[in-house]
């Protein structure tokens, strides 16, 4: 019971400690606010600029979620295709790795060229940056079906589609939901990159403007807003994962 309480309080305690140490360091070493603002100054910026922060956060959240949604759909589909056949896997894998190695910041100008600045490139960057882990995880789940189990089913006359439906897909779900946690945070990276380069809205753009006006606490307020959004979405994905694939999470390994 008490250890349970400790686990539940731990995140708040650790976060509070970080901010307290930060604040203390700023005061103790007299760090100027325009260099590293203390948490209290960031909090003030939050109060002062609440309306724009709120509006831009919501905008970033929407581009991120749309991009992420596309990545889930496309990533799941491509993962199933890649996991379906070894030749498709062999053919597509180097292409995907190559594509993933391209810094997405370099792709944004091309997207702007095609779609103009603003909403669309942000969504697409979020999509492009976040689909890869989903594909890899889904394909891995399919590729690691036990051969004996496959034999059992094949000897019953199961088609490849049967094996996929009865074994492959359920087995892949823990990998899939695990990858969502990685993908959602990456999606934020993607949309903010695009917003900072080519948009008039969004947290990325807000921070760029704040920088131009030397409002350093506001820049940090933007970062904190992003971090909070990221944590909330990650947490939602983790809940989804636990609900959908509880059978896969029975290890006591990390419970200490």
């Amino acid at each position, binding site marked *: 019971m008490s250890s349970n309480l400790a686990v539940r309080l731990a995140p708040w305690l650790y976060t509070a400690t970080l901010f307290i140490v930060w604040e203390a360091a700023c005061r103790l070493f007299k760090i100027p606010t325009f260099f590293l603002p203390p948490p209290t100054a960031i909090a003030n910026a939050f109060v002062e600029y609440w309306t724009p922060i709120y509006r831009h956060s919501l905008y970033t959240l929407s581009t991120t979620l749309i991009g992420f949604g596309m990545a889930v759909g496309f990533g799941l589909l491509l993962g199933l295709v890649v996991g379906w056949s070894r030749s498709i896997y062999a053919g597509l894998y180097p292409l995907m790795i190559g594509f993933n190695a391209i810094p997405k910041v370099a792709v944004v100008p091309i997207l702007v060229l095609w779609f103009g600045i603003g909403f669309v490139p942000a969504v697409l960057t979020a999509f492009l940056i976040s689909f890869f882990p989903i594909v890899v995880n889904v394909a891995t789940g399919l590729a690691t079906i*036990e051969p004996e189990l496959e*034999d*059992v089913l094949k*000897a*019953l*006359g199961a088609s490849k589609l049967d094996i996929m439906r009865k074994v492959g897909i359920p087995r892949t*779900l823990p990998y899939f939901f695990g990858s969502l946690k990685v993908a959602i945070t990456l999606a934020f990276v993607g949309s903010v990159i695009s917003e900072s380069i080519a948009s008039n809205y969004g947290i990325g753009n807000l921070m760029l403007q704040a920088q131009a006006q030397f409002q350093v606490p506001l820049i940090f307020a933007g970062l904190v807003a992003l971090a909070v959004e990221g944590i909330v979405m990650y947490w939602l994905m983790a809940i989804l994962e636990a609900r959908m694939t509880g059978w896969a999470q029975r290890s006591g390994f990390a419970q200490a």
Partner: protein
Amino acid sequence: MSAFITLDGVSHAYGGLTTAPAVEGLSIAIEEGEFAAVVGPSGCGKSTLMKLATGLQFPFKGSVKVAGEMVTKPVKIAGMAFQAPTLLPWRTTLENLLLPLEIVEPHRSEMRRRRVEYAARAENLLTSVGLRGQGEKYPWELSGGMQQRTSLCRALIHEPKLLMLDEPFGALDAFTREELWCVIRDLHAARKITICLVTHDLREAVFLADRVFVMSARPGRVLVERKIDLPRPRDLDVTFTPEFQDIVQEMRSHIVRARQ
């Protein structure tokens, strides 16, 4: 009269003709309703024999016949169990048993309508292997021996004519193993199905089988065929009789020679 399973002069290599064959010139005939055991040194192609007889692999030479038909695709009348229970962790024990019925016709198309009946059948099967009332548990809530029993039930649920067992008791402790010998002995006696057991445990083979086939080292073929005349029903006590020990000893000497 032709046998239920006939392998005639079969050669098979996994990587095509360029690799060393797993079995070469393998001939074996198993009668309907017979309990056959295949023993041999490790890597002798015992598992290959299983795959050939169930139509999961096809030989490049020789012929495989099951139930009077040439095997050109997976045979569908076989149930299989392996050393690992390979149960699906997201399904309860009962749902795991129903899996073959979701695949094999005619059950597949009648699954929805006859689900209650099928569940009752699965429940009966569980009872017959000493797992009464465990159907709602998940596989990972069961012990290794219980999982292996479940795996056996899954191999039997669609009432196959042929049961292929590939070292099904290999990962169990000695006591559980002997318990399961009795389970499989009783299943064979009650259902009169043909069983082909691949094992490296000579006592197991002699205790359970009507006939034991000893295979050579890779590439595998049958070296010796030995009828086991011990009267049925056999009790575990029989394994301590000198008669039994003699047969095991004889088998052992064949294997030792096969390894050289």
